[in-house]
């Protein structure tokens, strides 16, 4: 492996961080805030470390798979480290582990926070916090390779490493086009949501921050009460619509806008995804209503927002779900594990795998009934090969295994079972809020530091589709 090539690409990623840190610094400078120095210095550090390798290493037109994997994994880790700098430098509630947690949570679009009082943070720092979502949402490495020049071969290697193989099934384009589509949809949705939220009564600053967090399916808010602060139906509806769109495969959204064949109306996965969300909303609404928690209209309002928020891995809240009936919490935990569609900005298990899993069960039953029949697993008329099927099953087992291991580790640190399980599921799914002590309007500040660190590993595993990080641990087998 050519270490210099890996360092050069990580440097490029850092330059993008430096740009967004500098914008945050300008906001702080304009408002004469206490975060001026932390943001400026962080921006400089990112820039220096970004520029440094460019002086010594020439661009390469070829990147091996091992190099690609290293660029993506180390790129994310370095980005998260640099992203934690402004928090560390600013102080307040940010110890080193808290800053690292907030940064990883931001970049992986998890949206879990350790801050008790978000509203005292300077606006520049709040903007940086939302920017980490936005950069992480599209995948900081994808963002970098899209903007910066480079050969198509190297772009393809990085694209394959950063993106799930299943995600590419809905893209019938070359690497360059896929990247362009991603950026168009991403930018388009961000701008549109900012305008709509602004029109609905949110300040421009809040609108852009919430829009960054929605499109990236992140969940960081600028308010302690999250979306509940606004108590506005129009704002909730706008955010719900954009959360759903952000949880859909970007290629499908792009095709739908252009009127192409392969659109959301033809996708059986999209239909199943929406059906699951609707069933979830109905079940939660009914339970809330019949438990005399709220009148029917409010039951639907709160249920719809919470199910969509968790089902798309965003994590915004309009109410604290900690006191909801157990049945509704179980439904929400299901959506925390299910996550949104592949090819969207969400992380975690992803609905497509759940869909393949159910289809595989159906196939298995059929093969028991007809032992000699050749039965293939099909999605939208396309056969899913055995390799993908096995990969999906292994992924699901590994995913649930990691949730179990993290839960066990957290309970070892004296965290209660429910909090431990829900926080493990919420972090590996990049959802954000869990239940128990880390509920929708709560935060992760009371967890032990070591527990917070375990959860950040979960976030990175969820974001990088587990195998990316694990494969780097087996360096010998690469040779």
């Amino acid at each position: 492996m050519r270490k210099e090539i890996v360092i050069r690409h990580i440097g490029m990623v850092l330059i993008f961080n430096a740009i967004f840190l500098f914008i945050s610094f300008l906001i702080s400078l304009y408002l004469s805030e206490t975060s001026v120095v932390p943001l400026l210095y962080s921006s400089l550090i990112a820039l220096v470390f970004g520029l440094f390798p460019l002086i010594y290493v020439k661009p390469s037109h070829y990147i091996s798979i091992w190099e690609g994997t290293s660029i993506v994994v180390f790129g994310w880790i370095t980005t998260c480290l640099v992203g934690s700098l402004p928090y560390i430098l600013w102080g307040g509630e940010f110890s080193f582990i808290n800053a690292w947690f907030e940064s990883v949570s931001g970049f992986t679009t998890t949206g879990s926070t350790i801050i008790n009082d978000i509203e005292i943070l300077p606006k520049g720092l709040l903007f940086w916090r939302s920017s980490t979502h936005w950069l992480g949402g599209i995948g900081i490495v994808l963002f970098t390779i899209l903007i910066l020049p480079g050969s198509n071969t190297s772009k393809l290697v990085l694209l394959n490493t950063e993106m799930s193989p299943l995600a590419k099934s809905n893209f019938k384009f070359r690497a360059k086009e896929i990247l362009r589509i991603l950026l168009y949809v991403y930018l388009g949705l961000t701008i549109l949501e900012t305008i709509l939220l602004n029109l609905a009564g949110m300040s421009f600053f809040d609108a852009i921050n919430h829009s960054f967090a929605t499109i990236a399916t992140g969940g960081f808010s600028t308010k302690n009460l999250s979306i509940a602060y606004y108590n506005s139906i129009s704002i909730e509806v706008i955010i719900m619509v954009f959360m759903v769109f952000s949880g859909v495969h970007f290629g499908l959204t792009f095709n739908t806008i252009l009127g192409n064949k392969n659109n959301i109306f033809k996708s059986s996965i999209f239909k199943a995804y929406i059906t699951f969300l609707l069933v979830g909303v109905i079940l939660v609404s009914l339970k809330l209503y019949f438990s005399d928690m709220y009148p029917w209209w409010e039951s639907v309002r709160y249920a719809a927002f919470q199910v969509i928020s968790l089902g798309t891995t965003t994590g915004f809240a309009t109410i604290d779900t900690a006191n909801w009936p157990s049945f509704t919490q179980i439904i929400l935990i299901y959506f925390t594990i299910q996550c949104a569609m592949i090819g969207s900005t969400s992380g975690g298990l992803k609905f497509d795998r759940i869909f393949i899993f159910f289809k595989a069960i159906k196939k298995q039953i059929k093969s028991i009934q007809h032992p000699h029949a050749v039965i293939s697993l099909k999605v939208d008329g396309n056969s899913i090969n055995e390799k993908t099927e096995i990969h999906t099953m292994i992924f699901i087992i590994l995913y649930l295994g990691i949730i179990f291991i993290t839960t066990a580790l957290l309970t070892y640190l004296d965290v209660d079972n429910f909090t431990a399980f829900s926080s493990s599921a919420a972090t590996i799914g990049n959802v954000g809020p869990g239940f128990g002590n880390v509920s929708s309007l709560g935060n992760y500040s009371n967890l032990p530091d070591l527990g917070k660190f375990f959860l950040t590993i979960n976030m990175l595993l969820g974001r990088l589709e587990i195998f990316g990080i694990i494969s780097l641990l087996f360096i010998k087998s690469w040779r």
Partner: protein
Amino acid sequence: MKIKFKILTGFLLLIIMLLIAGAMSIYEFSRIGKSVRALIDDNYKTIEASKTMIEALEREDSGILLLISGKWKEGRQILQSADSLFLSAFDIAKNNLTEKDEDMYIEKIETSYLIFKNKWEPPIVGTSKENSVNWYFTEVHINFIKVKSEINALMTLNQDSMYLEASELKEQAHRAIMPGIVAIVSALIFLVMFNFFIGLILVRPIKKLINSVKGYYLHSQNFDAEISNHDELKELEIEIQNLISRIHQKNEK
């Protein structure tokens, strides 16, 4: 890019990073200095003035008690000196308005002190007020307590603000120290990277050159160090190649 320039750029980036960290620490420390001064100027002065006012007020109370017990001379002497002490402390507080609504507190003290003063300024000895404990408790003591509580309110306002300012100082101290710590850690990582890059642009090509020269004279292999950088080492490779070809030409002749 020339090797000299590459090395120089590396050092320059390191220097810039350290200089800026230093500048930022100095900036934050100077802000701490200003905050400490502000803390003393803004709040500490008023707190001290409030304490003096309370002390003066208590002396005035003693003076009134002396007048009630018929000791005119001692009583008036104490009242006069305590009054001038109170007024000078009050002036300090009045001219040091730094907190929100502080002027309101000052106004309240001024009004209630005037009412209190009006109680003891007229003659007491030789009038019905002499030896009248009832008059003291109904007319004087109530107003004494009122002025005192209003001075205490002013003191609390400044103490609270001082506490907040001190908490902010703690944050500022953190912000002054952290760039230094981050700079040290960054510089260490930077040096490791610098070492790696020096190896990449200097050591690795030199080794290639050595091996190629050895290959040429020991095993009669073609001289080709395959140096990809366009710097002095590439020039050296070309010059060695020229030298070898000239030696070949000379030998052939």
